[in-house]
């Protein structure tokens, strides 16, 4: 693996290898005195974020540091990007300065893919940490890790992805990864928040949350991304919440073993009720914890080996 740009087209064997590595890392770090592995000593990882982020950036930074890589954080607002430097020039500068891996978040879909093309010559690895409404592959991997932990295997499990699928790169990455790992995915959303071409995705679509809940093994709630909405996608926040929010009443419709996920940041009371988010069925803090191990595993597979075949 040279880059991690998308889960669409990711070899299920590679995805499984990353998840297995993450499991072992989690296990080996549990209760240890020194939470640091020497594996990536001397490697330099740069996070290049053109959008706000807490959990993803911190998670990548901790992952890199626990693997002993040197991690440098660049955010667009405090860098030469502010002076008008292009993404390409910024990336080439980082590569020339010695970055072995650039982790990029960008508001434009496809930015990570372009970056990988520009950085092919210096040989720098690129990890997509979210590009526009396209993909966020490490989030999907950590969701899969969390589901595997709670449910055993993903084979033939039924996962509902609920809410603003249209603007969600998390949903897109999860759809491809979960399908590749053998799960059934059902999208539950108002017609206005489903992406164009949804019929070509490996999913079924529903508009009735109450009808779907009794048959699912997990439900993944998505944040309503007001910052990407220009126009009326639903009449009001209250109406959205009533139709598609995971309330306490709705949680009772779920089977006992069902897991509740949310990629964060959560809008409590909008897409998910506070009591549901804090209930034992919720794996939301585990998702964050697993995120570090999954990102360590990704960095390991990208950077540990110099002569690795793509």
């Amino acid at each position, binding site marked *: 693996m040279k880059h991690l740009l998308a889960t669409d087209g990711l070899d299920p064997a590679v995805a499984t290898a990353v998840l*297995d590595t993450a499991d*072992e890392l989690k296990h*080996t770090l549990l209760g*240890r*005195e020194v939470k*640091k*592995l*020497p594996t990536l000593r001397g490697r330099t990882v740069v996070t290049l974020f053109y959008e706000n982020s807490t959990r993803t950036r911190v998670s990548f930074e901790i992952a890199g540091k626990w693997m002993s890589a040197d991690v440098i954080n660049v955010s667009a607002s405090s860098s030469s990007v502010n002076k008008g430097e292009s993404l390409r020039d910024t990336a080439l500068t980082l590569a020339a300065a010695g970055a072995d891996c650039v982790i990029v978040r960008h508001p434009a879909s496809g930015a990570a893919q372009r970056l990988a093309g520009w950085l092919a010559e210096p040989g720098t690895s690129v990890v997509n940490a979210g590009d526009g409404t396209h993909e966020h592959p490490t989030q999907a991997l950590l969701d899969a890790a969390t589901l595997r932990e709670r449910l055993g295997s993903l084979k033939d499990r039924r996962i509902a992805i609920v809410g603003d699928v249209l603007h969600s790169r998390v949903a897109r990455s999860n759809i491809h990864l979960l399908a590749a790992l053998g799960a059934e995915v059902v999208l539950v959303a108002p017609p206005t928040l489903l992406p164009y071409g949804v019929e070509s995705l490996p999913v079924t679509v529903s508009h009735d949350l109450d009808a779907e809940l009794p048959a699912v093994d997990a439900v993944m709630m998505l944040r309503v991304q007001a910052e990407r909405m220009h126009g009326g996608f639903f009449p009001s926040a209250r109406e959205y919440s009533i139709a598609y929010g995971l309330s306490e009443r709705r949680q009772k419709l779920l089977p006992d073993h069902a897991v509740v996920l949310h990629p964060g940041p959560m809008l409590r009371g909008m897409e998910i009720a506070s009591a549901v988010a804090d209930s034992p069925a919720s794996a939301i803090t585990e998702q964050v914890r697993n995120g570090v191990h999954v990102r360590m595993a990704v960095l390991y597979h990208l950077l540990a*080996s110099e*002569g690795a075949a793509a």
Partner: protein
Amino acid sequence: MSSRPRGAAGSAGERELLSAGDVARTIARMAHQVIEKTANGAERTTPPVLLGIPSRGTPLAVRLADKIGEFSGVRPPAGALDVTLYRDDLRRRPPRALEQTQLPADGIDDRVVILVDDVLFSGRTIRAALDALRDHGRPRAVQLAVLVDRGHRELPIRADYVGKNVPTARTEGVSVLLAEIDGRDAVLLRPSEAAETPGEDS
């Protein structure tokens, strides 16, 4: 490193160094040596912790612990210590899958830790294991038990308990087969063709 079957039976020029019976007797002898050296079973001594290095060190550690328990009445805990993340040859090879690490629940602080591996070769695996141990705690002492010592050390490392010393050429291959992984017990010497490079199964 993986559970690939080693040295398929009957390949040309392969020589059996230890039979299944020899392997069992060797492990029994090593168990006696461990008991003698660590005074296992005696009053007021904490039993040592046996940590196998995956993949074949892990079942070896369990067998050794069973034998020590049988002979001394006190079975020391056996676990596994994966050293993949501490290896010095990671950059040169495609990414390896990680193996299990399993330490005793009460840790390894102030215990005698005995590392267990199948073949001692360059010593690089043991160096990685020593580094890994340091991140898990501070043992009172670390010892090393190997079923086969084939020479060609690249580091100042020696074993405390050796099943069999086998003088080899660097280009030859030594394979330890264990029933838990390979379906039968044996130690085989392969001629130069599929030579293992030092630092691999060392």
